[in-house]
């Protein structure tokens, strides 16, 4: 990326975050001056433009500082529904900060300064991990959480859409936290029925737990294979 292209992307992202035009110009002049002295490339010195813009815009909380103004919301969805719901909630300005131990998306949003986010999910088994990161990071994607074999990546929409990448609407944090698809509900019902049958048939909880664990592992493996199969030769799957 050329220096001009970098600063264009940076300016677009700052604009989308509501930073005044005058401040954007001032910041760009200062940063260009810095590069003139270090002799480094912008990406090397400042990191990906979208991420840098988010930090410059005062959107990232200072380490150790209370984060009072931000809204927080944790939710989850099944694997059939997660990408659709991430797209919906990303458009409303929710940034996934991490996935918690039970696989829920831990989100944050700063009212008045929210960016719209886009997300993608990739299978990142040990073998694929380095390659996926190598391909996605230069495009501004940041790994924001992992669940089983899946890695979830985020990127501010302004990185690609410029000012058009601002959130379309910023509704209040939803009270709902579980978003199941129809397929997800059917799978859950089948799994619950199987587990209940196994429990009744096999008696000791240990057997049932083994059965549930095996079923879960098989389902995960099948899902991961389905995900990588169509274009598994190299490129990360569609998000």
């Amino acid at each position: 990326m050329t220096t001009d292209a970098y600063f264009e992307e940076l300016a677009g992202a700052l604009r989308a975050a509501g930073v005044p035009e005058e401040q954007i110009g001032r910041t760009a002049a200062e940063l260009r001056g810095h590069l003139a002295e270090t002799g480094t490339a912008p990406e090397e010195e400042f990191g990906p433009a979208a991420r840098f813009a988010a930090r410059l815009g005062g959107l990232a909380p200072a380490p150790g500082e209370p984060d009072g103004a931000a809204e927080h919301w944790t939710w989850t969805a099944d694997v059939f529904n997660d990408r659709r719901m991430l797209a919906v909630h990303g458009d409303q300005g929710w940034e996934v900060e991490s996935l918690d131990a039970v696989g829920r998306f831990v989100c944050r949003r700063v009212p008045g300064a929210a960016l719209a986010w886009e997300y993608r999910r990739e299978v990142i088994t040990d073998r694929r991990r380095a390659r996926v990161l190598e391909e996605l990071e230069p495009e501004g994607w940041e790994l924001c959480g992992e669940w089983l074999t899946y890695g979830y990546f985020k990127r501010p929409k302004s990185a690609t859409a410029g000012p058009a990448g601002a959130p379309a609407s910023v509704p209040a944090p939803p009270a709902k936290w579980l978003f199941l698809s129809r397929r997800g509900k059917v799978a859950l019902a089948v799994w619950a029925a199987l587990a209940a049958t196994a429990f009744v048939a096999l008696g000791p909880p240990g057997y049932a737990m083994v059965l549930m664990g095996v079923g879960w592992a098989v389902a995960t493996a099948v899902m991961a294979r389905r995900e990588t199969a169509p274009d598994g030769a190299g490129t990360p799957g569609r998000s």
Partner: protein
Amino acid sequence: MAADRRSSWLKGVLDLLVLSCLTDGESYGYEIAKALAGAGLGEIKGGTLYPVLNRLEEAGLVEAEFRAAERGPGRRYYRLTGPGREYLAAEGAAWEGFHRAVRTQLHAGGTAP
């Protein structure tokens, strides 16, 4: 890892270190980075430094002025404000207290010579 640990130490105290570079007068981003590197704190990239300067300015702890240069791009000079000086004194003392507690504990644990 040692590098990761150093970087998280630095995170907690970088704003104070940046303020401390301004106690003797104004300075600009690149010069601040150079001063910190010279003090043995390692290379601070612009991607880390400028968000800190931004936050300090928004908090009113420093004020800045852009000045055009005769040759090359201009520079934005930062200087400490009154509240910035007070903040540095108070938070600097808090850091000292923390540092002393860590040192005492490490000595007690037998890691010091």
